[in-house]
């Protein structure tokens, strides 16, 4: 009897081991991207060629910005270290090809979520990390204070290959204004040409205008007009066809936003483990099995909050404190009058 019992327990143990092994690697097996990332030891992330506040490299080559923080969050969740990211600066033209061809695994590059991009080109948008809209910048001395003062023959500098070009056409066409579009491949040339006086106005996303204004010869000579002519929800993008990886990126972003909602910061995250609120405990890996479905351990979300911080910290560090857009506007939590609202982690 005793002999059998011993055999039985070892059998149960074996089955248990086998079972846990299969459940744990199920997600990892399904996700080629996750497996490759863990094997390589770094997350491959596509960013802009330099947009202060979103993705910008300093002289030492350290990348900062809210877009950069999304990739860092994924690295913290998947690899345990927010610094294990390889950033690839991409032009607007290269970005989707780089992602679909597998050169990068996340595109976090102030990219507008639109139907045709989501549906057409083999991409999946996972969420919104910045609500933006297209605006116009003009010289203060021009006396223009509203887009209603635009007249026939106005020349507008912008970048090629963005939704900007399409919105601009819609805007001027609907008002019956003839305009001269001057479209450059890189943002630096747009700024230089506008600054030199080639164009009467510079149009792109308002966050971009605010960030580029800091690069002008004399930022105080320029103003951003109050009108917003389009919806530009910017967010990270992944390749179609790897739903586990898609979920990891989506919930890494959601974790940052929800952490802010519940007041969890990089400083107090560890102490929140003993909170009375089960929702907070789930967000710091102290309750539930929130990582298993992704093939991750249970503290993946705690690492994001500890190493990268919540969304509010990221915004303050990158956009508010750098003087780009001190006012959060729509990018405030829904509980505070903004439109940031994410599904619950449970």
């Amino acid at each position, binding site marked *: 009897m005793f002999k059998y019992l011993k055999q039985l327990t070892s059998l149960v143990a074996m089955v248990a081991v086998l079972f846990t092994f299969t459940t744990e690697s199920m997600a990892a097996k399904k996700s080629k991207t996750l497996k490759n990332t863990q094997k390589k030891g770094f997350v491959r992330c596509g960013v802009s060629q330099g947009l202060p506040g979103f993705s910008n490299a300093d002289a030492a080559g350290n990348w900062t910005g809210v877009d950069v923080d999304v990739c860092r969050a994924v690295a913290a969740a998947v690899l345990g270290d927010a610094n294990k990211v390889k950033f690839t600066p991409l032009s*607007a*033209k290269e970005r*989707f*090809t780089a992602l*679909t*061809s597998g050169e990068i695994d996340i595109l976090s590059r102030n990219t507008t979520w639109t139907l045709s*991009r989501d549906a*057409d*080109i*083999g991409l999946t948008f996972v969420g919104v990390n910045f609500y933006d809209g297209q605006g116009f910048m*003009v*010289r203060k*001395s*021009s*006396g*223009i204070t509203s887009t209603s*003062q*635009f*007249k026939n*023959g*106005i*020349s507008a*500098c912008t970048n*090629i*290959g*963005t939704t900007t*070009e*399409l919105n*601009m*056409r819609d805007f001027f*066409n609907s008002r019956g204004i003839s*305009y*001269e*579009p*001057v*479209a*450059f*491949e*890189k943002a630096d*040339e747009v700024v*230089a*040409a506008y600054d*030199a*006086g*080639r164009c*009467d106005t510079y149009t792109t996303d308002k966050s971009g205008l605010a960030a580029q204004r800091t690069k002008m010869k004399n930022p105080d000579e320029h103003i951003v007009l109050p009108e917003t002519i389009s919806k530009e929800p910017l967010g990270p993008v992944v*390749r*179609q*066809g790897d739903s586990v990886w898609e979920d990891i990126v989506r919930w890494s972003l959601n974790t940052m936003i929800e952490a802010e909602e519940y007041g969890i910061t990089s400083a107090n995250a560890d102490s929140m483990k003993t909170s009375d609120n089960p929702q907070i405990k789930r967000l710091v890996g102290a309750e539930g099995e929130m990582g298993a479905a992704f093939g991750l351990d249970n503290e993946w979300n705690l690492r994001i909050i500890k190493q990268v911080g919540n969304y509010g910290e990221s915004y303050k560090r990158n956009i508010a404190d750098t003087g780009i857009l001190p006012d959060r506007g729509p990018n405030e939590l829904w509980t505070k009058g903004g439109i940031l609202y994410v599904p619950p982690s449970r």
Partner: protein
Amino acid sequence: MNFKLKDIGPQLMTVIAVVLVFGFFTYNAQVNMENRGIDFGYGFLSQESSFDVQFSLIEYDGSHSYFRAYLVGLLNTILVSVIGIILATILGVLVGIARLSPNYLINKFAAFYVEFFRNIPLLLQIFFWYFAALRALPLPQDAEAMFGISFLTIKGLFVPAFIWENFNIFFYSVVAAIIAIVVIRIQAKKIQETQGKQTPVLLISIGLILILPLLSFLIGGVRLSFEVPVLKQLATTSFIYEGGVSLPPELIALALSLSLYTATFIAECVRAGIQGVGKGQKEAAASIGLTPNQVLKLVVMPQALRIIIPPTTNQYLNLTKNSSLAAAIAYPDLVLVFAGTALMQTGKAIEIVSITMFTYLSLSISISLLMNWYNNKIAITEK
């Protein structure tokens, strides 16, 4: 015909290898695109493009198709290439001859120009001319009128537009003049060959090309008037010229930098060509009583051109391909409009890049064929 395996074997193997490699690439691309959910197809060309282009030779706006946008880009590429080739040829020939000048100053100045411009990367020169021009040129409201009717400003060159009446009569008169000149040239050559008489072809040609169009004005009812650009205020400090024709500064800067750069290479071709004709040839020609003009026209140039044309063809091809750097300074050429904006709006990378590559290939081959035809025509026929 008696093929031996030994003879055709290597060729056959090469063909099979090429087919296999291309087949592999196509298959690989297909599999990968299918895996990533990208469809392949050229159907997008007929869809509405919904983006505008700054400068176009044909009527175009965002309500036209992507194919029309492709044509706009192609024509802009051809336009800047043609302007560039013409300017580069004129400048190149002048500088090439100047380098052979016995005048120390002219000679050294030409040498300095060549060494300076051919040794700086073209992209830098394009940026230099564009941004230097933008910094140096006046705003529209500060511009001084050139000849009272043209304005060179930061927003471009504004020149009067021609307003024609009965333009077709004028056009036919020019065509008639050209046909007449060609006929007279052929006749003159015949007379020269059969009777040894020289006809003053150049004088007759100039006369015809002036008189016939002039007659169309006097008796053909052709009228020409000008629409001069007028300054218009857009806002307190922003102005623009209305009416007339405007050339964007991007086109001017690109054509200027392309021709300044390529002219240096053409100058060297010209110098090599002229120096390649033996001194004895000129002396022999002079000794049989030819005038210096005839020496140049009948003895030196025919031989020099044989040396000049083939390398100059290369320079024309280079100029055309280099015009794709336009994207850096917002000149809407094929690369910017089609391989740029259209590619990004549609995401059809393989289709658009393949069309663009094929287009440049066709352009280059056309130029090459044209130049080869010209080269064969002027080649000295061995008897």
